[in-house]
């Protein structure tokens, strides 16, 4: 029965993972074409891209390290998407949470490393959560679109952090750079040795977060309510869900995860807060969540992919003088293709072909 449909490739077309892989391959090919057209030396750029992302233990650590913040923020965006909300505010949530992390670490110099890191995670969770829940509140009670409010809150959050590190939190012995002091030793996350490889411990935390998000969305009552909200807001309200509260909770969770990204980046990677703390993690995370189809497992894989792309792009810049901003273009092309792949017209076309295939099968049997 299914042989004819397989022959038409229709079974595969319906499978999300196949669609996403095809989109990624096509997106990367188009990006390479763009590089070639604009005169980049692909013979030099491609090996640099590969060696910088998966070439050796150092490259793999860089890929994992780059994937940590976008995995956390991406999981948050995914939670929002499942509830029908779009958190574009990752950047602002990262900065606000990292700022809160620095403040608390200086205020409460805990000596026990495990406690210190736990405290930092809680602070990031709360700070990012509140920053995003504000956008949820504006959405629920003032009917303000969260896409626009979170974008504006990005600017405000960044400026708040920037003010702090140019002013009260500035490291007086920082060599003249406007940045905070390094976060205290007990607050730092170590780099782990596993066999021949090294891995930032933040990566393990991000994997744990993915498992928690999966359980939260698929196995808890509130997670199911959030998904109902995303599928059909009216139905959720009719079923007795407190929609305004759910909207605030969903945005709060999204921001809390972005907040954890901020403090983990602080304690596991950069150690100081600066104006260049987040090179657009909040935006890359949107691509991560979309490519991951807003599923925890998908987000993990997508974050690894985009982490590798970022790591590879910066090595391309170092070795082959191809600006790393090309990775932004690749992200954009992949997301744009993905929108087309999930568009209404393509969906319609696939359904029509399925019916045709079913009709053909009917004739054969």
């Amino acid at each position: 029965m299914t042989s004819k449909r397989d022959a038409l490739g229709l079974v595969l077309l319906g499978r999300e993972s196949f669609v996403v892989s095809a989109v990624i391959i096509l997106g990367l090919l188009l990006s390479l074409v763009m590089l070639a057209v604009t005169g980049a030396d692909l013979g030099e750029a491609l090996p640099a891209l590969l060696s910088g992302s998966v070439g050796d233990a150092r490259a793999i650590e860089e890929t994992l390290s780059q994937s940590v913040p976008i995995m956390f923020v991406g999981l948050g965006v995914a939670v929002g998407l499942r509830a029908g909300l779009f958190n574009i505010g990752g950047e602002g949530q990262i900065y606000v949470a990292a700022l809160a992390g620095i403040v608390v670490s200086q205020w409460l110099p805990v000596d026990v490393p495990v406690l210190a890191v736990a405290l930092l995670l809680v602070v990031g969770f709360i700070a990012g959560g509140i920053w995003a829940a504000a956008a949820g509140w504006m959405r629920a009670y003032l009917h303000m679109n969260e896409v626009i409010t979170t974008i504006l809150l990005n600017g405000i959050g960044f400026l708040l952090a920037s003010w702090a590190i140019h002013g009260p939190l500035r490291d007086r012995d920082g060599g003249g750079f406007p940045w905070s002091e390094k976060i205290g030793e007990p607050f730092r996350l170590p780099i782990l040795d596993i066999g021949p490889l090294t891995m930032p411990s933040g990566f393990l935390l991000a994997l744990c977060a993915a498992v928690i998000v999966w359980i939260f969305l698929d196995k808890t009552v509130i997670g199911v309510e959030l998904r109902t909200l995303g599928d059909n807001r009216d139905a959720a309200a009719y079923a007795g869900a407190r929609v305004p509260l759910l909207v605030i909770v969903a945005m709060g969770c999204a921001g809390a995860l972005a907040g954890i990204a901020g403090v983990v980046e602080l304690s596991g990677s950069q150690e100081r807060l600066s104006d260049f703390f987040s090179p657009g993690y909040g935006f890359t995370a949107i691509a991560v969540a979309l490519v991951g189809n807003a599923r925890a497992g998908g987000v993990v894989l997508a974050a690894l992919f985009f982490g590798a792309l970022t790591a590879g792009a910066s090595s391309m810049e170092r070795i082959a003088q191809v600006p790393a901003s090309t990775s932004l273009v690749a992200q954009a092309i992949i997301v744009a293709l993905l929108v087309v792949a999930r568009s209404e017209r393509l969906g319609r076309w696939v359904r029509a072909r399925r019916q045709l295939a079913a009709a053909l099968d009917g004739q054969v049997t």
Partner: protein
Amino acid sequence: MDALIELFISTAFVASTLRLAVPLMLAATGEVISERAGILNIGLEGMMLMGAFTAVIGADLTGSPWLGAIAGAAGGAALASIHGVIVIRWAGDQVVSGLALNLGALGLTTYLSRKILGTEQTEVAHFEPVNIPILSDLPFFGPTVFGQSPFFYFAIAMAGMLSWVLFRTRLGLAWRSAGEDPDALDSVGVSVARTRWTALLVCGAMAGLGGASISLAQLFTFIENMTGGSGFIALALVIVTRWRPLWAVGVATFFASADALALRIQALDVVDIPFQISLMIPLVLTLVMYGFAARAGRSPAALGRSWLKS
């Protein structure tokens, strides 16, 4: 008291208000048209940035700021046509497509500006202020208000013209129908897709000109991410205009006056406010204005909804 007078009633304040308002007027007017026709264009920021870039390339190649401005409009419209292919032709998600365009425009202009213009910022052929005869001789603010860059007069003229088109012509009626009730528009035999395409291209060209007004009339060169979020501000201001092109002029000017005030407080050292805090003022103001507008206004009914002929 003198300091307060110095803050508000000075030609420098009026001049910087108008200068800051122009890109927002152009972009917001364009977005009003696009949203009236049902197309949400989150990529406004990217279209402004692309316009700023192509305008500099155009002015650099031809040595004419006018051809540069046209190149800016074309750059914005080119990006808008990608949005059109994705959301009109394929009926894809409008928000995600717009976000992708912003990301792509940032990456592409950064990449290409390093390739083409190099890292040194070369000054290109640009616009000088144009003094309107007689009016610019008026006392007080005459020289300021009537001595702006051509973009200023163009922005006001376009807001007036697009307002007339939107409310008084068949094309405008089609635009509004495409945003309110596309099925009805289709049922009277007008192509929803074609109607939305025209509105979106107008929006892209206007956003491109908005970007060009920054690069060709303010900074005379291209700098990475030089629009710095103006497109997002314009997006929020559109809601405050309640989707009326002429209001874009007033709302953009009001917003720009707050922005200019923040800059003046900084420059004059009246009060000791850190510059990050003064930069925050316009963002917070936008949120507040949006908050009030969101309760009062009603967006076009089919805004953000894709439409396919069944």
